């Protein structure tokens, strides 16, 4: 699914939005554009509130994002360390690439051969009518580097869909969540994976339980960290080759 950004504008790291330097109520400072410092109590309330709201109204993708940010205090440093200790991941942390329509050369990607990462990614975006620019920027992560890590995770999500061959319907999203839950350990992914299926029909649940989830878990466990792949430098690589390299088993 996608975030309907009717009430917040996209803010890049170039500070295209909120340039105010304000002291947060909790005496914390704004560490990056869009950052809202919060007290532990506020984070707890946000986590609870966003969890309820995300279940109540699945179209509130901003709530899923907030849940991820407020509960990721253990998983995010973990991910960041995994990136730091890997040559490609380390480079990503240094260079901070962003996946956005303004930075992607869509025309060039479209011309790449079928089966290449770039071509399949563009095909995925067009078939599902989605755009990489609708990812929520982080607000409640109190560390600038970790904020980038979660932003990277969000932007890489569409590539996960491409690599796993899953569409953006509820079923596809749940499968990707299972994979991401195993890969990242983010509580938001775990919750999404566990509660997402609640809204699926019995037939879909069966396919999910017997084929898709076991495959997603196996792939997740077998794969190296997905944040350690510099996707922007691998557009020409065939999807199958990249799958093998990471360790994702062929989709059922």
């Amino acid at each position, binding site marked *: 699914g996608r975030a309907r950004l009717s*009430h917040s*504008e996209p803010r890049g790291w170039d500070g295209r939005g909120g340039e105010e330097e304000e002291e947060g109520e909790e005496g914390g400072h704004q560490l990056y554009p869009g950052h809202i410092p919060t007290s532990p109590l506020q984070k707890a309330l946000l986590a609870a509130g966003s969890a309820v*709201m995300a279940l109540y109204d699945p179209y509130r993708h901003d709530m899923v994002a907030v849940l991820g940010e407020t509960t990721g205090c253990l998983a995010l440093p973990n991910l960041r360390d995994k990136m730091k200790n890997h040559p490609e991941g380390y480079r990503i942390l240094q260079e901070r690439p962003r996946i956005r329509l303004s930075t992607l050369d869509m025309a060039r990607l479209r011309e790449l051969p079928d089966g290449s990462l770039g071509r399949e990614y563009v095909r995925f975006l067009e078939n599902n009518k989605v755009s990489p620019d609708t990812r929520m920027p982080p607000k409640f992560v109190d560390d600038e580097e970790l904020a980038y890590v979660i932003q990277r995770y969000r932007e890489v999500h569409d590539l996960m869909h491409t690599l796993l061959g899953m569409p953006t319907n509820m079923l596809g999203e749940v499968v990707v969540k299972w994979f991401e839950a195993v890969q990242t350990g983010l509580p938001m992914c775990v919750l999404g994976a566990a509660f997402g299926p609640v809204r699926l029909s019995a037939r879909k649940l069966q396919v999910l339980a017997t084929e898709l989830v076991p495959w997603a878990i196996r792939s997740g466990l077998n794969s190296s960290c997905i944040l350690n792949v510099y996707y922007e430098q691998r557009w020409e690589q065939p999807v199958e080759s990249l799958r093998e390299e990471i360790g994702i088993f062929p989709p059922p």
Partner: protein
Amino acid sequence: LCRGRALLSRPGGALRALRGLAAGPEMHFGFQTVTEAERREKIYQVFESVAKKYDVMNDSMTLGIHRVWKDILIHKMNPSPGTLLLDVAGGTGDIAFRFINYVHSVRERQLQRKLKHHQNLSWQEIFESYQKDKFNSLGDSQVVVCDINREMLKVGKQKAQHLGYSEGLSWVLGNAEELPFDDDMFDVYTIAFGIRNVTRIDLALQEAYRVLKPGGRFLCLEFSHVSNPLLSRLYDLYSFQVIPVLGEVIAGDWKSYQYLVESIRQFPPQEELKAMIEDAGFFKVEYENLNFGIVAIHSGFKL
């Protein structure tokens, strides 16, 4: 769709002084310091952004108690049929609808009393009197809802349509500091939870005085100051810890609700507001605290 929200940044020293000369004196926007022009712009954007969820948020933040506060305001007003009310910053129509309900029920009772005294009329005469009065169910009462924000008025109009209010109701776009109305027009002027957002409160009060008829009443319902120290701390805790979270979860908008709780702290307390109202020329200025001062109703008369 790019909304081009240019939240102005705060440049340093000398440049700021220069801009200050052009854009007006420094003022507060919540806990930030901004120029007058910036403040107007920011407040407009806040209400543009919250308009659609305004009512839902009011219910969540005050646990529905804001409805009681508004009911109390109308009861205090005790309008009789024929009253002409100006509701400034009336946005989504809460005061206007309550006013209409109130005069409608007063009118009903008036009509019933009239009928009781005419029990010797034939059934035909009774039926004809219904026809006459049917087109006067409000007894010529009228309310003009005036708001500076288009989005809020839009929401108000939609609500009116949805709830079936049409008679005796007008919607006007206008600025409380410079009302588009002539002198000595209205019987009552109300401003509920709006004066806090006005940039020049003194001007708004002067305008209120101007457009009221002699004998007219000024009524202001607004968040105020809690003097009880324990309650004040609990109130602060709730305001700063819970309300912005509610804003984020329900409306997806933390910042507007952060502004809201900060602006309440910046607003003059009861006595100071009373003095300002007196300065504008009103007499018999009084205030009544509701819920220990969380909210206060100020009242004054133009003589």
